[in-house]
């Protein structure tokens, strides 16, 4: 069952260089209890679409041109700021990339966690405190009492990210959006945090949207994957669909160009030529056309429709000339 349904979302930014269409007619659903990965390079619209879900877009310069975000039966885009404030934290919460800048350096962890509880719940201070410590303990934070009374600078990056995750889980939201939660962390700490997200998903049934550029992280954690390019959908399907039955040339390029531990020293990589598109200039044609090996005339004259790859309707791509068949299984 879909818990969140985004349809026909268009988000524009009005800048000095022109109108940037950061998200361009995007549709997707989030199923209850799943981990959905959203993958793309900078400027692919992955973060902007999730900020829109949270009602955190700076308007202006941003402008939501059209679309619906259905959470249950309600369209979140019609909500006022006050109404959104009740959704954030309670129903949908978010953790950000940089644990170093997301905590207020002047306030103790206790103050920052308790603030959430005071604002959103009717618990007494003692109950709220107990809840905070309970969550810290669940997240495997050693010596929770001590960390609870620390300042952010006394904690390492990995611990700060755990605190951010704790903060987002205090009110038991149904959806957790994690925007590059491990990009700023070292790989051994990254592994710990990814394990933690997996555990949260399993234990509490929290649906997770994981935004990342790292195909390795996606492979380990996500049930379904949505690859984005130039503010649009490139391809969406189960992890296996995306990795083993790739249809979109961009997804294929991405998979071939990443160095992985399976390469041999001195191996050549197969990069995608060119650079990501200038979003002020993408018109009604395929955003990937200039970098694509499979490009043909129609790619440059019309935007390809979203096409279904298999019978059961779980694998979709936006391309006229998709890659055929199975590969590197």
């Amino acid at each position, binding site marked *: 069952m879909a818990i969140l349904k985004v349809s026909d979302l268009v988000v524009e930014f009005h800048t000095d260089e022109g109108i940037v269409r950061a998200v361009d007619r995007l549709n997707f659903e989030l199923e209850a209890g799943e981990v959905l990965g959203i993958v793309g390079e900078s400027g692919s619209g992955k973060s902007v679409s999730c900020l829109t879900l949270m009602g955190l877009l700076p308007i202006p310069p941003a402008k939501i041109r059209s679309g619906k975000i259905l959470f249950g039966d309600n369209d979140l885009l019609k909500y006022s700021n006050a109404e959104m404030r009740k959704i954030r934290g309670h129903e949908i919460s978010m953790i950000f990339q940089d644990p170093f800048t997301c905590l207020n350096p002047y306030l103790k962890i206790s103050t920052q966690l308790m603030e959430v509880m005071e604002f959103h719940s009717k618990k007494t201070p003692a109950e709220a405190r107990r809840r905070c410590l309970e969550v810290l303990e669940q997240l495997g934070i050693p010596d929770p009492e001590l960390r609870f009374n620390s300042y952010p600078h006394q904690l390492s990056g990995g611990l700060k990210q755990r605190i951010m995750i704790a903060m987002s889980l205090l009110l038991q939201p149904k959806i957790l959006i994690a925007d590059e939660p491990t990009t700023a962390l070292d790989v051994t700490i990254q592994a710990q945090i990814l394990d933690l997200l997996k555990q949260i998903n399993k234990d509490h049934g929290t649906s997770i949207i994981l935004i990342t550029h790292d195909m*390795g992280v996606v492979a380990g954690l996500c049930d379904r994957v949505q690859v984005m390019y130039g503010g649009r959908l490139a391809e969406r399907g189960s992890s296996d669909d995306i990795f083993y039955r790739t249809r979109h040339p961009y997804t294929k390029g991405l998979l071939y160009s990443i160095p992985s*531990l399976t390469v041999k020293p001195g191996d050549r990589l197969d*990069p995608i030529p060119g650079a990501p598109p200038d979003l002020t200039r993408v018109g009604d044609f395929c955003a990937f056309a200039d970098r694509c090996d499979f490009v043909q005339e129609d790619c440059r004259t019309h935007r390809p429709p979203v096409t279904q790859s298999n019978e059961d309707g779980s694998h979709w791509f936006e391309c006229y000339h998709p890659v055929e068949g199975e590969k590197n299984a």
Partner: protein
Amino acid sequence: MLEVKDLKVHFPVSRGGLFSKETRFVKAVDGVSFDLKPGETLGLVGESGCGKSTTARAIMQLIEASGGSIKLGGQELMGLTGVQLNKVRQQIQMVFQNPFSSLNPRMTIAEVLSEPLKSLTSFTSKQRLDRIQYLMEVVNLNPKFLFRYPHEFSGGQRQRINIARALAVEPKIVVLDEPVSALDVSIQAQIINLLQDLQKQFELSYLFIAHDLSVVKTLSHRVAVMYLGKIVEIGDTSTVYDEPQHPYTQALLSAVPIPDPKRERERRRMLLTGEIPSPINLPRGCSFNPRCPKAFARCRVEEPKLEPKTVSSKASCHAVASI
């Protein structure tokens, strides 16, 4: 060609009261030794704070080392100044991590690329122009762009300019400090391939510093793994990656996500508990012992030495037998 022996960089940090005379040291690099052969890439990997960038900066003489020796073609670099240092700098150049902050925004690309030629060579202005046009071609940029400013370029293009600047004075060694980590994945591959091409074309030696183990594997002939200011394992890339000896190397490799869902599902991770200890207050014995699954009594009192563990790699660990 480059020989680093027992390199130490200790930063003083004052502790205690304002008038306290006691000084303590952060041992950012503590006894690092390695050599770099002509035409070879040595990868230096490790997590943040392990001292890999500090090692690079000490080699470049950008920070002063507290001890040890750095020899380039037999010549000692420690303590060099002025003209002599410039001569050395002609042979060893560096590319920095962040392509957005390492180019002066007020200089055109032509000025950026002429700078090292002006200060390190006696080229005439005509020779300089020829050289920078050639450099642009070498890194696959259109020489037409020479009179543009850095903000007009994308991250990948800027990194190409940085590489061109490093190559301007025909160095033998290039120190690459995380040259691709600020770039998008599709651009990373372009730069990695370019670095491979340039190495062959100019017979360059690279000291390649990165935290991304997959990138390091692609580029390096040999790899050194650092932890808390020391090399804990060093050897041929395939040996270190396929038969890691040190428990830290094993943990590091097992933490790298693999872009393949089936392999990820089947895989057993070796999760490290805890965090990297503070380099001011290093644990006694082996500095990895508080996080090490194989630690035993000896590890807590005696510091292990870097010893051969396989035919083509060395590691410092009491738990693994030396050969």
